[in-house]
């Protein structure tokens, strides 16, 4: 049961050159749908044998990026290589190197689990006998043997995802795309999925996954790219990203909104962090390195006579990552999608500048708000 397709074992002598080191190299990826630029100059480099997380809210362009890399969507701009093979010029080669598990399970609803896996195995060139053996083996590995003959209509969300992932592993692809592998799963199934992904990496696979959950990226990924409105706003290891947003996040609500600028200045001085003002103007959010520093802050606020109505210290959520990295929150994002069409023109030019000045993490780290004028103006007004 442990042996999959007879694949040559990993040899210790890796050939030199970029195609061995990089599973994914993408530069300036662009995809437009009408006037809306869904992906707007995304750069990604994924090292072979690592887990790379693409983190972002709904509509940020994660799925579109993955679909372009997986040859499911044509590139409108930029270039991408998978293990050194260009997705545009050598799509058929790229398809032999990847497995794709989509956000919506890409298995056939009308077929049973076994029939699905046998079909995909046959399409991949296995004989009838090999296909049956392979399917039985994968079903066993993913704990689906009992449900093998049942119609997929009765499968739970978790079972469906597992089958989907199993289908992606038939050809033992060296690169696996997982588009939001745990969205909509209950916590227990989610933990199982994480375990499966970790096992996968231990076999030598490279994994590129998208997620909306900071903790998921934290749990699984070696490196993370935070993506917002079709551009990468920050990139780095999980530790680098966490230090850029602080290990925890402070939220205070002021009794008198007029004192917000004073409070902001104090937070900046005491915590040496940039506080972001909430849209209604009375709440401040700031990244924090040490929770104990909150005492110093409270003392200074009291000396200055600034009253608080609310105070909390939390683990940073995706929302805070966004606040500190982009200057706007995830919920703004939803409202702005509507504006996106008319804004596309200005956004395009602004973001093009962004992407150009952002080859690595350094910028994003040093200045958590790389484009201060536009987004912040919106929030303050």
């Amino acid at each position, binding site marked *: *049961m*442990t*042996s*999959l397709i007879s*694949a*040559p074992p*990993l*040899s210790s002598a*890796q*050939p030199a*050159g970029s*195609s061995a080191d990089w*599973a994914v190299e993408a530069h300036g990826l662009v995809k437009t749908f009408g006037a809306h630029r869904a992906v707007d100059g995304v750069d990604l480099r994924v090292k*072979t044998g690592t887990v790379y997380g693409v983190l972002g809210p709904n509509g940020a362009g994660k799925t579109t990026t993955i679909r372009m890399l997986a*040859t*499911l969507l044509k590139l409108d701009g930029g270039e991408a290589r*998978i*293990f*050194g093979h260009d997705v545009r010029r*050598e*799509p*058929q*080669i790229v*398809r*032999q*190197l990847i*497995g*794709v598990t*989509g956000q*919506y*399970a*890409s*298995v*056939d*609803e*009308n*077929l049973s689990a076994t*029939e699905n896996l046998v*079909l*995909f195995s*046959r*399409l*991949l*060139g296995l004989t009838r006998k090999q296909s049956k053996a392979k399917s039985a083996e994968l079903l066993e*590995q*993913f*704990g689906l043997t009992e449900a093998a003959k049942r*119609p997929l209509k009765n499968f739970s969300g978790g079972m469906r995802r*597992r089958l989907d992932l199993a*289908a992606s592993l038939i050809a*033992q692809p*060296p*690169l696996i795309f997982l588009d939001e592998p745990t969205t909509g799963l209950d916590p227990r199934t989610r933990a*199982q999925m994480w*375990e*499966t992904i970790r*096992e*996968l990496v231990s*076999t*030598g696979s490279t994994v590129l996954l998208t997620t909306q959950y900071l903790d998921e990226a934290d749990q699984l990924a070696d490196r993370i790219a935070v993506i917002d409105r079709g551009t990468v706003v920050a990139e780095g290891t999980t530790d680098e990203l966490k230090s850029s947003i602080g290990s925890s996040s402070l939220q205070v609500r002021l009794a008198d909104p007029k004192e917000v600028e004073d409070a902001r200045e104090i937070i900046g001085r005491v915590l040496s962090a940039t506080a972001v003002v909430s849209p209604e103007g009375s709440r401040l959010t700031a990244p924090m390195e040490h929770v104990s520093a909150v005492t110093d802050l409270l003392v200074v606020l009291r000396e200055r006579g600034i009253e608080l109505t609310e105070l909390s210290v939390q683990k940073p959520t995706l929302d805070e990552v966004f606040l500190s990295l982009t200057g706007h929150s995830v919920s703004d994002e939803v409202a702005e999608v509507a504006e996106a069409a008319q804004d596309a023109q200005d956004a395009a030019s602004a973001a093009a500048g962004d992407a150009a000045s952002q080859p690595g993490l350094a910028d994003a780290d040093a200045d958590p708000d790389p484009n201060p004028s536009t987004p912040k103006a919106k929030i303050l007004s």
Partner: protein
Amino acid sequence: MTSLTLRPTIAPGAQRELKNHVPFSQLISNSLSMAGRGLIKVRRTPEQLFDVTLQPIIFTVMFTYIFGGAISGSVANYLPLIIPGILVQTVITTSVVTGVQLREDMDKGVFDRFKSLPIARIAPLAGALLADTLRYAIATTITFITGFIMGYRPAGGLGGIIGAALLVIACSWAISWIWAFFGMIGRSASSVQGISMMILFPLTFLSNAFVPANTMPSWLEWFVNINPVSYLVTAVRDLTNNGTVGYDALWALIGAIAVVAVFAPLTVRAYMRKV
């Protein structure tokens, strides 16, 4: 439970020898696999079989008893005229489903997987069209059996029946390319159904399938006589009732080839743009 006991056995991407084209033998085997999928689906969803099982029975019984006395004096005299007509009409109607199902299929998640696999791009389309010939064969068989039960004894014998069946299946397969094309360009499955029916009804009813053309007004008779479906109906009548193959069969086949020659490239082009 999901304890994976995989060991590092995956060949690194950079070390694999790969080709960027699909050999013809793989196209054939991929298409057959996809056709196999189509057959499992037919078996799994019996309602898909209704239009090839119940429809031929209902149409044959209904039209024969409604028109029989009026057109041919009696039901028995009408059978040699109506059975070939019903056969052509039913099987062509069945072929409409091809486009609708293709559209539905392409909107589903599983199509993403097909697109991400290193298979022949055209295999899902080819497989679907191939699997549908089985549905035409079922519809053909059931129409003949219903006719036989109602007293139809074709003078052309078994050879004539088999020849007629093959001709109808071949022509319907050709016509299914038209519906497949609408399946590619249509906005949704129901719009595909709508467009296809709009073309199908005049094509099958404005023919000599149910009523002899010489009873119609002259302008209609002119259309009925040039309608390719009429040639097919006449050819089927020749085969089943006389056991002969005439020019009508030839014209029907030429028409079928012309349809494939026009619509296969159009469909494939529209399809390739989608995948």
